[in-house]
């Protein structure tokens, strides 16, 4: 019964993990080459493969849980078991030749995210078989989403920064292709939007990617390794060698690495791509928002956490908190159902990042929130997809309404997701959000934990407000749109239900110890705690804080209920907020500012460059050079007469000159006897 044996055996289990990693890749290769000829365009093949991968990932998670609850160290590197992939040979900083060997790093953090990715990705595959039915590029969509999953799985398993970066980039490419999925569909009325959105996403995340690359190379340059374990140890040594102070360069490098997170996890000011990423098919949005992309940024922070100096962590907290409040305000003014969810994601990501910046238990809380968020946000997004599907691709909430009766299952699951996100009742989000708020106590930010705490509570209220606003506008009242909405097929609602169940129960693995007497309840902290946070105090339930936060969330809920219950599609909020509404609804004019930057500043520089290139480089240098070559060639052409006699004569002349030179060389012209020749 090898498969159900939960002790970790490197020989067997690393191969299983690699199998889970490569199943989507194999699926991609098959699908992209022969997918269109398969029955049902090959969707069953990839979904089955993903299902197998999911089983392995979940099994791995149980292994981690059982090992850690038995008190064992759960930190496996495949290189220790002799499984590795030697890739780059380069001269290292130290002596001798260094060799980049890629291996698998499997620890509780990786196991948790690995399982989340597996489950969400499988459900998204399943959902897509219904949602994407009839799409022109159905088989391509499945191939791409499989490769997207492969990239994320690889990123989670990488045991070194370089391979993490490679998968990170692959994910950037796949997000580009998937967000722009409809840009190849001439029937889609949003074809131009999709093309613009995928370009925007790609270019914006690119800024972050370059930052990450620079940061990675700075660390490599100093420490001579990409391995996480080596980097952590080297950091500890470097700090110790510097007398306990963090070297300045590490702060700079850490900021660059964090830049990667800012880009991928859509933190301020590089958040602008995520709302536009809604142009992709809804299952893709669910993937991006729950399991891949944005989770990758947070995961990167988790992996590089020991290398980030306190100053960097301060910046991380500040950026995260700013993003959280900033996106929440915008989220209150959006009418696109997916837009609300998008800004909600940015806001929640801000939460996670801010928590991680607090360090210590904040890291655990942030990662915990990432996992719970993945479940309920995937659920919410798939619900949104179901709603859009049921409303014949209508996305504006003002044209919805009254779906409560028409789409029972979708409504129920949406409700679960909303409850989990807005933290009204003690399921998923309630526990993780409270842990984050509790973790703000230990921040080392200059402006103190009180403001951070207040911000967090405020954002919790706003989250409740905009989510219930969306709920009432979508499901409450009378139907205002055209056509008759209908419930989605089973293949779409079953993933919703599964995710809803997860949303309810996932929060219970992270209940802080001591909440219910002396029982060990915080499993999540349990696995992560041993990792590199030994000695950090665990999360504890701060009841006053929890009560205040829940009360504020309820306040947000009641405000939304008062304003939108029985909504007729008109939003009373603009009148109440006035100018602030305008600021928020225009996304704080940040997109406009970037547009100005691109259109005026960058275009101006480009024009100057163009002028230099066109008139000075091409006209001045290249054209004149080619002219000179042509004239010389024309002159030289006349030498080639085609007359054989001329050639022979010149050959003879040349031979004569050579003969003379040789004779001169050996001294025969002066009459003496040469020493050469003879024996």
């Amino acid at each position, binding site marked *: 019964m090898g498969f159900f044996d939960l002790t970790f055996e490197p020989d067997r289990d690393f191969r299983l993990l690699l199998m889970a990693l490569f199943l989507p890749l194999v699926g991609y290769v098959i699908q992209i080459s022969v997918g269109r000829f398969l029955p049902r365009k090959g969707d069953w093949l990839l979904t089955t493969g993903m299902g197998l991968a999911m089983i392995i990932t979940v099994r791995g998670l149980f292994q981690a849980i059982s090992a850690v609850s038995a008190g064992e160290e759960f930190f496996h590197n495949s290189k220790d078991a002799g499984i590795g992939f030697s890739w780059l040979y380069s001269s290292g900083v130290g002596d001798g030749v260094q060799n980049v060997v890629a291996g698998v790093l499997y620890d509780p953090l990786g196991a948790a995210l690995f399982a989340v990715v597996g489950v969400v990705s499988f459900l998204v595959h399943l959902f897509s078989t219904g949602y994407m039915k009839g799409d022109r590029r159905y088989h391509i969509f499945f191939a791409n989403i499989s490769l997207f999953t492969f990239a994320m799985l690889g990123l989670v398993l990488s045991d070194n920064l370089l391979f993490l970066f490679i998968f990170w980039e692959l994910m950037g490419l796949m997000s580009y292709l998937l967000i722009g999925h409809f840009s190849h569909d001439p029937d889609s009325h949003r074809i131009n939007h999709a093309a613009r959105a995928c370009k925007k996403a790609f270019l914006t995340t690119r800024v972050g990617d370059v930052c990450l690359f620079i940061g990675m190379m700075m660390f490599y340059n100093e420490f001579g390794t990409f391995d996480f374990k080596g980097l952590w140890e080297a950091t500890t040594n470097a700090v110790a060698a510097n007398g306990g102070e963090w070297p300045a360069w590490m702060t700079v490098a850490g900021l660059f690495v964090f830049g990667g997170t800012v880009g991928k996890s859509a933190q301020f000011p590089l958040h602008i791509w995520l709302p536009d990423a809604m142009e992709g098919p809804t299952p893709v949005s669910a993937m991006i928002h729950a399991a891949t992309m944005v989770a990758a940024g947070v995961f990167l922070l988790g992996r590089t956490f020991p290398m980030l100096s306190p100053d960097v962590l301060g910046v991380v907290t500040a950026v995260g908190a700013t993003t959280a409040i900033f996106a929440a305000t915008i989220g209150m003014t959006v009418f696109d159902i997916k837009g609300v969810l998008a800004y909600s994601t940015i806001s929640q990501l801000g939460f996670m990042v801010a928590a991680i910046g607090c360090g210590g238990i904040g890291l655990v809380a942030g990662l915990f929130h990432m996992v719970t968020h993945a479940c309920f946000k995937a659920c919410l997004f798939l619900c949104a997809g179901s709603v859009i599907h049921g409303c014949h691709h209508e996305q504006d909430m003002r044209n919805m309404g009254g779906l409560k009766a028409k789409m029972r299952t979708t409504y129920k699951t949406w409700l679960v997701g909303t409850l989990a996100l807005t933290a009204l009742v003690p399921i998923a989000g309630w526990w993780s959000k409270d842990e984050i708020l509790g973790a703000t106590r230990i921040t080392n930010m200059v402006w103190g934990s009180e403001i951070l705490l207040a911000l967090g509570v405020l954002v919790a209220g706003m989250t409740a407000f905009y989510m219930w606003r969306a709920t009432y506008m979508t499901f409450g009242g009378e139907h205002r749109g055209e056509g008759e909405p209908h419930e989605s097929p089973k293949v779409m609602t079953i993933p919703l239900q599964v995710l809803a169940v997860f949303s309810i129960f996932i929060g219970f693995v992270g209940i802080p110890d001591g909440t219910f007497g002396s029982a060990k309840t915080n499993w999540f902290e349990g696995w992560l705690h041993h990792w590199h946070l030994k000695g950090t105090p665990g999360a504890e339930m701060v009841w006053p804080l929890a009560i205040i936060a829940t009360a504020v969330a309820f306040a947000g809920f009641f405000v939304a209920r008062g304003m939108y219950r029985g909504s007729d599609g008109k939003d009373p909020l603009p009148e109440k907020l006035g100018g602030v509404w305008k600021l928020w609804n225009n996304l704080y004019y940040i997109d406009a500012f970037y547009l100005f930057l691109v259109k005026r500043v960058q275009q101006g520089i480009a024009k100057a460059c163009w002028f230099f290139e066109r008139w000075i480089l091409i006209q001045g240098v290249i054209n004149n050079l080619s002219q000179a070559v042509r004239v010389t060639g024309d002159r030289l052409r006349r030498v080639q007469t*085609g*007359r054989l006699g001329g050639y022979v004569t010149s050959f003879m002349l040349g031979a004569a000159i050579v003969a003379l030179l040789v004779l001169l060389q050996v001294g025969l012209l002066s009459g003496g006897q040469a020493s050469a020749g003879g*024996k």
Partner: protein
Amino acid sequence: MGIEAYVAVSAALFALGIVCILVRRNILYVLFGIEMILNAANINFVAFNRFNGDGLEGRMFAVFVIILAAAEAAVALAIVLNVFHLFHSVTPSEVDRLRE
């Protein structure tokens, strides 16, 4: 006979070959001239071999020159035939299309 005699004959044959190429206006004479030049060189090789103690190098070279000449004659003749077929002329100065 001393080596000077052979070298002199070789030089004369070489000069004849060159002149043959220069003064006659027919591709075949170019071939004749080349054969003469090669033979002139061969005389030198064998003569130097003889007058330079033992060793085989000179003669080896001579054999190679003969092989080379055979190959050259075959290819050159093929070219001559083709040129005549295309231009209906065997005068080198008229076959100058490459110049354009």
